[in-house]
């Protein structure tokens, strides 16, 4: 029997405000490595990519995340997510 080819899981990321500025793009599609299960895992991987990500997530506790337009916590599972967003605490209103 042949093994099914491992399909790289891709997800769209969007960034806002100073998170966007530090990373340098407003959106991108990435393929996190196998084992990237949660928002925290994803952040850990992103920080290894370059110093822009490292600066953006310098203080991980302050950056907020959303999956498919819903606020989530770092332990939220990203499986099946279409769009994941990272942004600073909100200052609207």
């Amino acid at each position: 029997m042949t093994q099914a080819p491992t399909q790289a899981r891709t997800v769209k990321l969007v960034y806002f405000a100073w998170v966007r500025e530090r990373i340098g793009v407003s959106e991108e599609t990435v393929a996190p490595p196998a084992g990237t299960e949660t928002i925290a895992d994803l952040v850990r991987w992103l920080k290894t990519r370059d110093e822009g990500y490292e600066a953006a997530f310098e203080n991980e506790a302050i950056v907020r995340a959303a999956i498919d337009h819903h606020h989530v916590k770092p332990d939220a599972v990203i499986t099946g997510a279409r769009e994941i967003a990272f942004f600073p605490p909100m200052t609207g209103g």
Partner: protein
Amino acid sequence: MAMTPIIRIQREDFDLSAEIAALTAGRSDIGAVVSFAGLCRDEGGRLKALELEHYPGMAEAEIARVAEEAARRWPLSGLVAVHRHGLVAPGEQIVLVIAASAHRRAAFEAAEFLMDYLKTRAPFWKREHLVDGTTGGWVEAKAEDDAAAQRWD
């Protein structure tokens, strides 16, 4: 819930009277209309404009969720939330919330609830443009805004 909240994210200014008229037109069961308009301050003459960035799609969705929560908590006849994005000059309007109800307490509480949650949950970010021509920093979130929102938990 017969009441459908009106939620808009827009670049243009809004007209408070027109929004209230749309909410109350032809009705005689509304006893109280509370409105909140948030205006851009010049911060003692330092500020030329505020730039408002938002997360399209999520901004509308999140405000809609907060509005639905308000409608569950209070007997409301109508609810409006309008938030601008882009550049806003001092003195201009940024955000509008209107809550209508048979009685004043529900209207006051729902409007304040909506504003408190909108401040801390709606994906908007403000950046300062200064009178001296430079772009200032991103406005920092205030602990007092989180505290205000937590009052309703």
